[in-house]
């Protein structure tokens, strides 16, 4: 029972961080909140015993996507 409450709290945090990524001011902050969302999603996948998916989500969402987004934002700023 206790574990299910923790999982439910995790799901609520995922929704909150997804809303935060949309609502927060500033591109870089938004990308960082998005990577927090990815990490929380990774934990939820691990909770559901889908370790393969969790590893892919951790590497893509938290690692690669953040780097590519930050580089893209950097390029857009440089052109102005």
């Amino acid at each position, binding site marked *: 029972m206790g574990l299910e409450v923790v999982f439910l709290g995790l799901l609520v945090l995922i929704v909150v961080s997804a809303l935060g990524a949309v609502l927060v001011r500033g591109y870089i902050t938004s990308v960082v909140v998005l990577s927090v969302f990815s990490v929380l999603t990774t934990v939820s996948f691990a909770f559901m015993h889908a370790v*393969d998916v969790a590893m892919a989500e951790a*590497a*893509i969402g938290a*690692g*690669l996507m953040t*780097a*590519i987004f930050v*580089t893209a934002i950097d390029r857009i700023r440089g052109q102005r």
Partner: protein
Amino acid sequence: MKMGHAAAAIIALASSAAVLTLTLVFAVTGGEAPQLAGAMTSGSVAASGSVNVVTTILLDFRSLDTLGEASVIFASVACVGVLFRGSRRIGTEPGLGVLVRRSVGYLSALFLLFPLYIVAHGHLSPGGGFQGGVSLAVLLILLTVAYGSRPMATAVDPSRLHMTESLSALGFLMAGFVGVLQGTSFLANAAAGFPRGVPGSLLSGGLIPVLNAIIGVKVASGLGSIFFDFQSERGE
């Protein structure tokens, strides 16, 4: 809030509510799928010799779908390459201080072992070519951020990465055509005569470790070259 934003928010909320309801309905009532799922999970070790059921489904039962996923990555890498064509492939990232550079240098040896382990043990433990390849691409990004773009470009030629990606995509297709030459289906594993080995040992699973290695190289070089393309500058 503007009118368009409100309309978009209503559409997004309505569609996600519909998807959630449909998922719940299917989860409660169930469908025909469990029979197929049971057959796939119970027969996977006998069919391929790989202990990891997920990898067996991805690279044996449904390897044609994996080829489709790999071609999605191939298409996106090619599109990014077209968008940044004519630009110098070397970015102007200056790199970080000596403390960060040294510690990243020491860490990178461990960081390199992780993707190699993930790819080599893809048929034994969670993970596989995709996860390991992405980790390797992240290592490339970490080294670029720490050491700067110019030393990285001399160590890893960014235009070589595109070629490596295309060659490994070709390698995946060639591995698939072995099955056709043996008279069975495309991307066949045990049916094409690949040895199953002892389930649980490092050399088992027939074609699966080979495909894992090919996908690892392909994903690492493809995603790495996307990053290098984003870093590059318009040529003058």
